[in-house]
């Protein structure tokens, strides 16, 4: 959609589609994020057990680090909540009248459920913990 409409990337980033387009773009980005994380995790675990090489050890160190954990928590939580909203709207089309309210409700759930663990993980990095 970014490219099909022949707008520049900066223009596309200004979210003229508002919260709907933000939800669509985030769903796609978080989905790819999960795929990259889980794919790297599985393939690195496989080669680490089969070969025990340095590359797998490096990938394991990267995905076990706290910033990566916060990122994958964001991805999984957003993708799950947004997907659930999408399924509810698909199965029960009258709810589409309240599409915008549902999006706001989704952010209302997402922000505390993501924010509190992310804050705890961040403080553990800043205080020099694991």
């Amino acid at each position, binding site marked *: 959609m970014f490219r099909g409409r022949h707008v520049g990337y900066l223009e596309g980033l200004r979210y003229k589609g508002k919260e709907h387009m933000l939800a669509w773009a985030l769903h796609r980005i978080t989905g*790819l994020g999960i*795929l990259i994380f889980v794919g790297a995790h*599985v393939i690195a675990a496989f080669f680490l057990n089969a070969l025990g090489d340095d590359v797998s050890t490096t990938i394991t160190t990267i995905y076990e680090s706290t910033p990566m954990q916060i990122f994958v928590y964001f991805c999984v939580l957003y993708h*799950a909540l947004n997907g659930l909203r999408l399924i509810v709207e698909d199965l029960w089309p009258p709810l589409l009248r309240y599409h915008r309210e549902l999006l706001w409700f989704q952010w209302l759930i997402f922000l505390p459920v993501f924010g509190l663990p992310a804050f705890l993980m961040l403080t553990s990095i800043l205080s020099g913990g694991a």
Partner: protein
Amino acid sequence: MRSRYPSRGSTFEYYTWLFTRLSGIFMLLMAAFGIVYANLAGGRTLMDMPTQYRWSFFPTYWHVQNSDIPDVFPNWSNSFWQIYALLLFLVAAMHGFNGLRVVAEDYIHRPYLLLFAKWLVLILFLFTLFAGTIIVFELFI
């Protein structure tokens, strides 16, 4: 521009569209069951939060091994959890790689490049499935 919704003639697109939604619900239910089991089996006092998440995403015993759970080997590593993990992995991989195919169709416009990308997605899917099976059943030589 391709429509995001399946046309009436295309049953394959309809079934993948339906599969994405059903597998999404299915994975949420499986994760919920995993986290409920973990808490009923002593996770509330013996596990930290990341361990519970690791277990609910993928229920294999090495995801809980470094917690304080005493009975990892009989209770958390039996064939029920192996089959459960493999089923969850299969559904998640199909959901994820089908999503990657949809993204590729959105952004790649040259037909041969798209065909190449789809084959690449299929090969990656099969390899990940192979690696996941080896890991879950610990079939390393």
